[in-house]
């Protein structure tokens, strides 16, 4: 029974596993060179900040991340499993939400906003530990089917679905840019367009604003199920966090 939904989703995908292209493959040689060299990848400024935050106590309990987790290298592989189902809460949590839950539940610290540099720094640091490992996100139902449906749902004044660009027209051009397949294997990532680090949620938000839809709120079920669908769709692809994209 457990395998059926995964098969159903696989059947829905137009892009076969072997045809999947990371955004890296569609980026220019210059952009790829930035990602290949950690000394040139600006995202490592955030990783550096994350390393400092890792052992810095926050909140009323006086704990830091390191108090419970020890060295950050113990979280190798963790980022390959998110978004993950949280049985206590009965919902999906993304990596950023997990960090915030650690803060509110264990550290007595307030949750950080989705675009807070500190949250992105920690998420980049944790993501980096899984770099090179294949994504292995659990295809949990009913979230996966919901996400798959959202991916194909037309939205906004332009009346476009995610699939129309990132599946049917992936590899073609939008203006001067190649439309990527939209795999979330490098988040949080440094976008030259943003001149900063951003999460997958920021990317989804930008796409939704682009088709003139009202963006899902950061902690909404919609944002989480869409992130889950994208991750499962990219399962097996290598984590590139922190990636550089145009």
């Amino acid at each position, binding site marked *: 029974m457990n395998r059926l939904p995964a098969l159903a989703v696989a059947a829905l995908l137009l892009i076969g596993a072997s045809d999947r292209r990371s955004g890296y493959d569609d980026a220019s040689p210059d952009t790829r060179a*930035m990602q290949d*060299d950690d*000394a040139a990848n600006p995202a490592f400024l955030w990783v*550096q900040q994350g390393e400092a935050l890792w052992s810095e106590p926050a909140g009323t309990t006086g704990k830091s991340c390191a108090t419970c987790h020890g060295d950050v290298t113990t979280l190798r592989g963790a980022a390959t499993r998110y978004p993950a189902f949280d049985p206590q809460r009965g919902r999906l949590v993304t990596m950023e939400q997990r960090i915030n839950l650690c803060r509110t539940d264990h550290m007595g610290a307030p949750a950080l906003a989705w675009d807070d540099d500190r949250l992105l720094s920690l998420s980049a640091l944790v993501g980096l530990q899984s770099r090179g490992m294949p994504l292995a996100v659990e295809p949990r139902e009913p979230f996966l089917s919901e996400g798959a449906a959202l991916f194909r749902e037309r939205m906004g004044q332009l009346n476009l679905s995610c699939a129309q660009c990132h599946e049917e027209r992936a590899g073609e051009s939008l203006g001067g840019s190649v439309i990527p397949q939209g795999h979330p294997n490098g988040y949080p990532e440094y976008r030259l367009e943003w001149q900063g680090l951003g999460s997958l949620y920021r990317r989804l938000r930008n796409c939704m604003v682009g088709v003139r839809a009202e963006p899902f709120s950061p902690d909404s079920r919609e944002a989480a199920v869409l992130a889950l669908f994208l991750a499962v769709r990219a399962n097996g692809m290598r984590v590139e966090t922190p990636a550089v994209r145009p």
Partner: protein
Amino acid sequence: MVRVLVNVPKQIAANAPFDVKVLISHPMESGQRRDQLGQAIPRDIINHFICTLDGETVLDADFFPAIAANPFLSFSVVAEKSGTLALTFTDDHGVTQTELVAITVT
């Protein structure tokens, strides 16, 4: 304090050029953009960068607008012996910051 990443090779040969790579977290606001109310956003860039090796200048550069945020610098240095690279930069607020990096010449 802005975040800075400096990268030099671990092993450096005497009198052979090596690359110094520097990343600085800075908005590099050009001064030519306007905010949502139409007000000009004041210029805020790193306008001067100087690198010395044991007091001797190896790079002295004036910066101008049209450099992206979080600038990346890469330049070559030749060293005769081990020493300390001092990278000093100044932004439009007059804030100066210096990063010291020890290099080991073998």
